């Protein structure tokens, strides 16, 4: 029934993304990718509550505030590939490391940090409190040996299906179900920041069509 568009290239081999993205996350969640008969993605949109909770909890001013302080280039510079956990870009006080939930004192709700003279980015998954399980500190910039690693391209922005229509969500929602965390407020990356989150149900308009999946077209059997 489904016909795959062979000519739809998203800039990188699909297999690379599947291997790099799914394995660590599946391991993290204690699940494994299975071969299935369904076209509907695993983990299909089941954590929406996080989004609604965030909409209620985030002060209205923060939903639309903007600092212009972070760019997409800086955002991706901290990641090995799109979707990987970013490394921690700042020094972490030794006294701090005994209790990882302290990360949430800045990254739980965001807000201005005098220490860093910047607005802290908000984590979309504050319920996972063992932050350093995934987010590594950087002690040295020197590689141990050089690597031939290549990353895939980041999802392209603004890929609306037709002029004026809301762009679909280009990335997997796993661990990133809370749109408000990354896409609103003064800590958000300027290129992907929006200021219409008060309506609360982002997925009312933005369908989840990850760019890591081939586009298909409906044909009758």
């Amino acid at each position, binding site marked *: 029934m489904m016909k795959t568009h062979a000519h739809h290239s998203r800039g990188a081999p699909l297999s690379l993304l599947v291997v790099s993205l799914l394995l660590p996350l599946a391991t993290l969640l204690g699940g494994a990718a299975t071969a*299935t008969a369904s076209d509907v993605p695993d*983990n299909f949109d089941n954590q929406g509550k996080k989004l609604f909770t965030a909409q209620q909890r985030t002060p209205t001013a923060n939903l639309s505030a903007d600092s212009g302080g972070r760019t997409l280039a800086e955002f991706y510079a901290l990641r090995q590939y799109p979707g990987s956990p970013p490394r921690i870009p700042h020094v972490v006080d030794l006294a701090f490391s005994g209790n990882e939930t302290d990360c949430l004192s800045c990254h739980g709700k965001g807000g201005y940090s005098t220490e860093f003279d910047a607005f802290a980015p908000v984590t979309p998954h504050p319920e996972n409190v063992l932050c350093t399980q995934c987010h590594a500190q950087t002690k040295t910039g020197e590689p141990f040996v050089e690597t031939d690693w290549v990353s895939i391209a980041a999802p392209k922005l603004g890929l609306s*299906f037709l002029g004026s229509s809301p762009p679909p969500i280009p990335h997997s929602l796993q661990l990133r179900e809370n749109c408000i965390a990354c896409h609103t407020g003064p800590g958000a990356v300027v290129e992907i920041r929006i200021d219409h989150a008060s309506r*609360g149900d982002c997925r009312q308009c933005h369908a989840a069509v990850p760019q890591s999946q081939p586009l298909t077209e*409906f044909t009758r059997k």
Partner: protein
Amino acid sequence: MKLDRREFIKQAAIGSALATAGSLFPGISFGSWNRLAGGPGVLAWQKTPCRFCGTGCGLLVGVSDGRAVAVKGDPNCTVNKGLCCMKGYHSVQALYGRDRITTAKVRKNGTLVEVPISEALNLVAEKLKETRDTYGKDSVAMYGSGQWTIPDGYVASKLFKGCLGTNNVEANARLCMASAVTGFMTSFGLDEPMGCYEDIDHADVFVTWGNNMAEMHPVLFSRMLSNRKRRAGVKIIDFATRFTRTSQAADKTIIFKPQTDLAVANSICYEIIKNNWVNDNFVNEHVSFHKGKTNIGYGTEDHFTFSDSAETIDFEAFKLFLEDYTPEKVEKISGVPAEEIKYLASLYGNPSLKVTSFWCMGMNQHTRGTWINNLVYNIHLLVGKISTPGNSPFSLTGQPSACGTVREVGTLTHKLPHGVVMNENDRQMAAEIWQVPVENIDPKPSYHTVEMFRALDRGDIKFMWIQVTNPMVTMPNLRRYRDGALKDDRFVVVSDVYPTPTTDVADVILPAAMWIEQEGMFGNSERRTQHFAQIVDPPGEAMSDTWQIIEVAKRLGFEKQFPWSQDNYIEPIWEEYRRFHTGPKHEMAPYTVLAERSGVQWPFVDGRETRWRYNPAYDPACKNDKDFDFYGKKDNRAWIWARPYEPAAESPDEEYNFWLNTGRVIEHWHTGSMTRRVPVLHNAVPSSYVEIHPEDAADLGVVNGELVKIISRRGELTMPAQINGRGVPVRGMVFVPFFDESYLINEVTLDAFCPISKQPDYKKCAVRLEKA
């Protein structure tokens, strides 16, 4: 690089200029579609209601070089104030699926061959006449839709009821809101909500009764969310049988066992009375008490008939009736803890809270659908929370014109545009406006939808014309009705825009103009009539459903009743139809006003729309000098009904131990015949699945995506499991979205219906599961 705000806005502006219609992003992966010759061209924006759900959002469609190329929300439309959902935003892409039906097809020796549309229309007229002459007037039938435009439904009713003298006119809205209608008629004597969407901006508490509004009426739901964000103390209570996206957003989810909403609603009334929360003034002035028949059956057998009879009772008798519904007793039936029932009652009972109840298919697709509608009105009436801003029992409708075309025009077997066929005055009025002898209009209703398809199977009906709907996916107990339609001497005409399982059984396929390829009107859930002009040309020989009917009517010799020219027929049809609704209770806006505005609410009296009915501050039809006038009933009161809890037609047992529930997802409209041809929507949810509770899946030994066989007494279906997806049913229940013609879940469902409304229950039947 740090952008200051002004630079950022500038860049964003460049970005959005790029994104304007026609100039799709160059070189991107979606961008394989053909470009308009000569670049983006001049863009004109034209208003229309959305093609899809009963919310009825106003859209502005961007047109370039004669093609619809973009959509934005219409800021002038108070329904959505410039916002849409993903279906609305991408709706225009549904016009351009590559397999659009653009020519007529006629079955010759078993295969469909293309013919000129005039030849196909000749055949339709001939066959209709021949069948009628041979087998009688009730052997021919029209089956339409809540997605018919108002003129579509009007000319269908005029031709079949007025000219051909058969009441065999039904519409798929029977499957979607018949119980809402009978609920309104029995409680208030007049159809359609007293309130309007503005209630959302005033209510403190929202209770969604078996209603996954976040997916089914998304723009209204997010208006609730934005109110909860903006105003302190606003709460959303999700009263449901399964966990949905609405549950994800709600402040509280209360789960009840299927069918037991009847008991819980009565229990809420019990608590309201027990705690002295009754609004005595309101009840004494504006309410009367009644009871009807009980043990009323389920309609699963052919020729089932039922008619209710009302008996007036007093408040004391009503109180006595409620003794069976103490929260403790109802906890045992419904699984809802007594505490939560008391909590719900306290929300309705608290005089300082404004409460709006929303419901749609959960209450309407219910073998006691009329009753549960009555019972929720009971709650609002006892506490007097009705017909004022924010206090609103709000029956949402599913389809864009279920209200406009089916309820208001009356495209149901017992209805006329004003009133019912049983009433002599109503027949007189119709005969006069239609210019037909009054004897033409049969005073006896014939078949409601399920019985109509049974009659087709039995052979009582031999000719059926189906427009704008896909019953070969949506009829419950589908296999019987498909086998019936395929029988040798049955003649089925289907007008549609894409091939579907229904066109697969057709003898004639007529290519239909879709939505903005024709002029027309829809009517949404809040009594709003919405006009749209023809914005683009229909493809090939595609023709509006209205004009198809007129062409056939002319061929049958009814030129006098259908005198209009193809250049201008919508305006005269509207002005003729409008005569049926003269008067302050239902006055409709004239064509010129409709053409200008982004929807107009009726009653439209002296240039003013009526937002809250039965309330003299807003409704000019109120005449009794009191604070409310429920003028729909002869006693000028709203009726409270003693309606008991009765079980579902089929409940899980030893052999078939699961409930089967069916419904929609936000991405797809009904059977997906349009939305699956919209790339973004298809790619978001490409195929259907069965939602299973994780523990049930573990017992069955299936993991996400593995195949499960669903077996009922009617049929079976094998499809992939969805575990912990967007929706999660409770243990002992599975849920299947019905949009996917590859998985015909209605071969498994049961054709039991509410004996009063004749609306089938798609939410409850018994199945068992096997790992496939």
